[in-house]
């Protein structure tokens, strides 16, 4: 599958980060929180008003705005990849 941006990933699906965009404080914050290439993320749910989203990575839950999620590129994992226990940073 082609790379998507994280905001396009539907609730319940998992992807592997391939690139993190943005700049300045926002980008550093994303990187510091562990959103770096090779990390698995799962989109848990969308807030009632449609924004922000809740994501799960490295065994914890994080919320980011859709506009910021659009800066993160992910390679979606198919059902197969989802079944297998991820190696680094589980998205349970």
């Amino acid at each position, binding site marked *: 599958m082609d790379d998507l941006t994280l905001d396009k990933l539907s609730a319940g699906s998992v992807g592997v980060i391939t690139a*993190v965009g943005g700049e*300045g*404080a*926002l*980008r*550093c*914050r*994303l*990187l*510091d*929180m*562990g959103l*770096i*290439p*090779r*990390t698995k993320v799962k989109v848990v*749910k*969308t*807030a*009632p*008003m*449609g*924004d*922000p989203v*809740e994501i799960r990575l*490295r*065994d*914890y*839950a*994080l*919320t*980011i*705005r859709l506009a*910021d999620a659009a800066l993160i590129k992910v390679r979606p994992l198919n059902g197969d990849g989802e079944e297998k226990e991820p190696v*680094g*940073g*589980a998205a*349970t």
Partner: protein
Amino acid sequence: MTFALVGNQNSGKTTLFNQLTGANQHVGNFPGVTVESKSGFVRGYKDVEVVDLPGIYSIRAYSSEETVTRDFILNNKPDGIINIVDATNIERNLYLTLQLIELRIPMVLALNMMDEVRSNGGTIDIEMMSERLGIPVVPISAAKNEGIDELIRVAYETASKRELPKIYDFCSPGPIHRCIHAICHVIEDHAQDADLPLRFATSKLIEGDDDKIISRLNLDKNELELIDHSIVEMEKEHGLDCNAALADMRYSFIESVCDGAVVKARESKEHLRSAKIDLVLTNKYAAIPIFFGVMLLIFYLTFNVIGKFLQDLLQSGIDSLSSVTETALTSFGTNEIAKSLVIDGLFAGVGSVLSFLPIIVVLFFFLSILEDTGYMARIAFVMDKSLRKIGLSGRSIVPMLIGFGCTVPAVMATRTLSSERDRKMTILLTPYMSCSAKIPIYAVFSAALFPKYAALVMIGLYIFGILVGILIALLMNHSMYRGNPIPFVMELPNYRFPSPKTVAMLLWDKAKDFITKAFTIIFFATLAIWFFSTFDIRLNPVESQSSSILASIGAFIAPIFAPLGFGSWQVSTSLITGFIAKESVISTLGILTSAPGGVVNAISQMFTPRSGLSFLIFTLLYTPCVAAVSAICRELHSKLKGIGVVVFQCVTAWIFAFIVYQIAGLFMV
């Protein structure tokens, strides 16, 4: 001996701080530190002090919380760092640990929530972790008070022996390794001269986010070019840019530290429970109604049930004490003025300070539960979108809503906001949420002037206040607080049961804070008003209030309000007393007009609907009461800014009242 307590938000830092120090806490004032940090002496060690630094995820120069931590450690050079790490979320927590290690200070890792890890069937090999990180690791459970004594012992020992972290190389052979070592080589002497830890300075040069540190190194042009060159080379070889490469290096190192040492539980009970609770609390349809329901319940319990009960109790206590004193003074034949000073001045002053206390304590009881359970983060998640347009995040909604009850606790509640910019903006906006003490003003004026539309006028005023708040927020976004707001990338911690000790400490803190700091200003303001309303300009005691100094001041400033349609001295005097407490506006008007048929009658004679409306707009927007102003001064750490708020709001109120009065003139008489 001084220790710095550092850790992520939601890592149990406050709980650990309370366990370490017990009740021996005080607010510390450290040079150059704008964010208040608490410090306290460790139980059983009279000479060991712990400073509780703000909860952070990384050491960068993007937020004041992060620079405070950086500056405290670099400039005050504590004897040791206690780094608290949430063991259930170890990878992300260790990210900060690696940055702290670079600061070259003796350091101990407190591995918190080990009880949760174990009960889920996970294990962490403490010795292996300690060896791989090069610092002592102590497993603890702050909430259950387990391992704290051992932590204190190890921390004391490490600091006494000045044992520095044994490892500081996190790079594996490759482009980053080459880049870091090349830069280290260039800046080694500079870092020593500037008294900066070498590895930390190198990281900052690569990340390029901290001009203050970089300029301290005093590098010349050639050296800077050399450094730039090695960074560019590294980026080319590595494929990632400098910031991502460094973050990648740290997380890769963390993964290698955890590999084999940390056996994760398959599924944590706390996470499963949180996911279940979130099915309801952040549910697509239920989340917003539940949030407003929770807020309404808190309001009801605070302002109508518990808080009111305590307030009435306190009031009747003060009243009976006051009447006993009055009887005693009368029978003793005390001079009337002295008696009035005691009863109307001292007792009224103490009473007005204390009347806020029950509400503050009860409100903070509920707020600390919202915060400590993890629901506050969900509120921010659910409500974020609604506040984004005015440049704030979902976190600010709770203090603002509390503002509808009382501005004082609302301003105090901004303390939990993680960004200084959001905090300041929220503090400046809360006064526009019409507080409950203004309700009597609205009610009496509506009854007198708009009996048929009372409800409509009330709702209209609330909405008008919110709209002005939004307008001010937009203006602030384009002036004072321009620039990028702190990114809204927020952790949603697992739901946890709040620790009673932490809640109790917070309540004690808030009550003490309010009493000690607000007491003087409110008390003296009340005494001043007593003085001005008891004497005339020649300092003779007055027969009726109409000849008092206060009335003269009222008459003096009355012309200011003439363009708004209410230029009489009675009205301006009542506005002055409203500065002490908004409730006083109506009672003062009643006393000064002493009209037959009560204050409603007096108002319907003094005001037209047009000038009444303008007056209501003015009271809605003008200066918050003295208790709120003193809270604002404290939270903004500046008396000048507090006075600025008073002036700014009075001017805004005047302008809006003027506009409303002019527009109303087109429709009303």
